[in-house]
């Protein structure tokens, strides 16, 4: 791949993660446990959609084929989306969504922090903006994890189950593929194995404060980065893409 192609593909992947977690959070609008939480959820979802827009626009720019942010978001087939399987998982209950956020954001923040120092200005600028947002999201979701873990017997049991259920989607975060390697060698991108050490320490600290147990090492699901998704994903895309697919070429 040329350098520009690496950047386009990498920015697309980052955009996919932001878009899909944002889309999942959007499904939670008007379903929150508290009004304050409605505001936080919408606010965070808005941040992710904003990040997706920046990453996709940049991907289009690097690719140079005239694709817009919406072309990336709405007009690709399922196998071209390279988001982590974790972010496409259905919302479940509030604890499931919180655990998903903690697991994803602690990884995403660590990744973005490295990317702020990468040698491509386009990526590093977006990463710097996103970092500020995601740092705040992580603080919020970590606080919730602690409340739920430490709260009542019921909340503790529920959120421990969420952690156990979602743990299998964390493995692929740290398995580099060709694109990760190229981003690392050409642009000083993240070293995923190093990231894993930091992530484990961060997550272990939050989980301990929440009086929860880290799940045992287990079989890990993978495939998101290769475009092989879970069964849930097709439905998410069908809903998200419907207008662009039904009215091709229309301006909105």
């Amino acid at each position, binding site marked *: 791949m040329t350098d520009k192609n690496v950047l386009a593909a990498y920015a697309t992947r980052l955009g996919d993660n932001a878009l899909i977690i944002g889309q999942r959070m959007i499904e939670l609008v*008007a379903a929150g446990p508290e*009004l304050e939480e409605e*505001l936080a959820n*919408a606010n965070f979802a808005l941040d992710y959609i904003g990040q997706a827009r920046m990453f996709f626009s940049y991907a289009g720019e690097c690719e140079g084929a005239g694709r817009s942010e919406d072309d990336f978001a709405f007009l690709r087939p399922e196998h071209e989306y390279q988001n982590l399987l974790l972010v496409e998982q259905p919302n479940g209950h*509030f604890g499931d969504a919180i655990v998903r956020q903690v697991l994803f954001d602690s990884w995403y923040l660590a990744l973005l922090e490295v990317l702020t120092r990468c040698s491509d200005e386009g990526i590093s600028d977006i990463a710097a903006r996103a970092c500020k947002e995601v740092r705040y999201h992580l603080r919020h979701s970590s606080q919730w994890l602690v409340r739920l873990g430490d709260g009542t017997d019921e909340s503790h049991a529920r959120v421990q189950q969420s952690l156990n259920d979602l743990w299998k989607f964390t493995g692929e975060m740290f398995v580099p593929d060709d694109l990760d390697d190229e981003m690392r060698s050409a642009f000083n991108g993240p070293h995923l194995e190093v990231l894993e050490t930091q992530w484990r320490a961060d997550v272990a600290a939050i989980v301990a404060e929440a009086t929860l147990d880290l799940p045992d090492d287990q079989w890990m699901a993978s495939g998101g980065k290769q475009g092989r998704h879970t069964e849930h994903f097709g439905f998410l895309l069908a*809903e998200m893409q419907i*207008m662009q697919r039904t009215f091709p070429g*229309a*301006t*909105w």
Partner: protein
Amino acid sequence: MYTQGLDQSGRGDSAKSGGESKEQLDAFQARIDAEEKIEAKDWMPEAYRRTLIRQISQHAHSEIIGMQPEGNWLTRAPSLKRKAILLAKIQDEAGHGLYLYGAAETLGVSRDQMVADLLSGKAKYSSIFNYPTLTWADIGAIGWLVDGAAIMNQIPLCRCSYGPYSRAMIRVCKEESFHQRQGFEIMLTLCRGTEEQKAMAQDALNRFWWPSLMMFGPNDSASKHSAQSMAWKIKRFSNDELRQKFIDVTVPQADFLGLTIPDDKLRQNEETGHYEHSEIDWQEFFEVISGNGPCNKERMAKRRKAHDDGAWVREAARAHAAKKADASAAA
């Protein structure tokens, strides 16, 4: 968004007196007449307090329920830009709900109580949110018409005699006018788009026009508590005055869009300059506010489900806070 039918629920509340003396009531009215703001700790007649609690809480409930019909299109918004704008709008509405509940709390009612009244069906919210959003154009129509109608109502509320409410409304109005422009811009884009898009816009106008006019509440002749609210300067203009103002402003906008208002009797009176229109179907209005609109049951079911699903979460948060408090007390 907006509270409506200010005199539709809890009829009789404002007629109840709190046993105040004539001197107290006269002194209070003198303050109102002098355009002084009434603040939370000031003395006020019980009926004034009750009227405001009802109106402000209805307004807050409307913001919260109003998130649903718009939220219905969030996952399907046709572009990322539209998705972000809609999400920001809905977030604003949650924020409006939050500070309106806060304004009502200054009158001595808890948010928990207000929420319980909403969930039990005792408290009302604006009838407009019981209509479905069937196409993307409905999101444009809601912004243009529903937020447009809301602004007509809310601008005068910025001068409401009750300080906390008037200050909340100043903030709300700034955001609402932004929403209204965004809605109009969605309609404009559709009307400049393909034939299908334009048809979608016309269909949305057809369905939202009459419900939007109903947002101003019953005709003045049928509006029982307007006079007292006017005297207290909670309300500054009558339902019909505001409705007329809305129609007069909106008809030229529809013309600009190239859309037809679904009222074959609509015409401008050359002498008055006002638009005259057909009679509103008040039967439909009263059906909707008494629970028989197209989506009343769904809106309430979703709100109740969110509340019930969140019970264990709120309980956990309270338990954790109590443990923290115990720990710091012991330290």
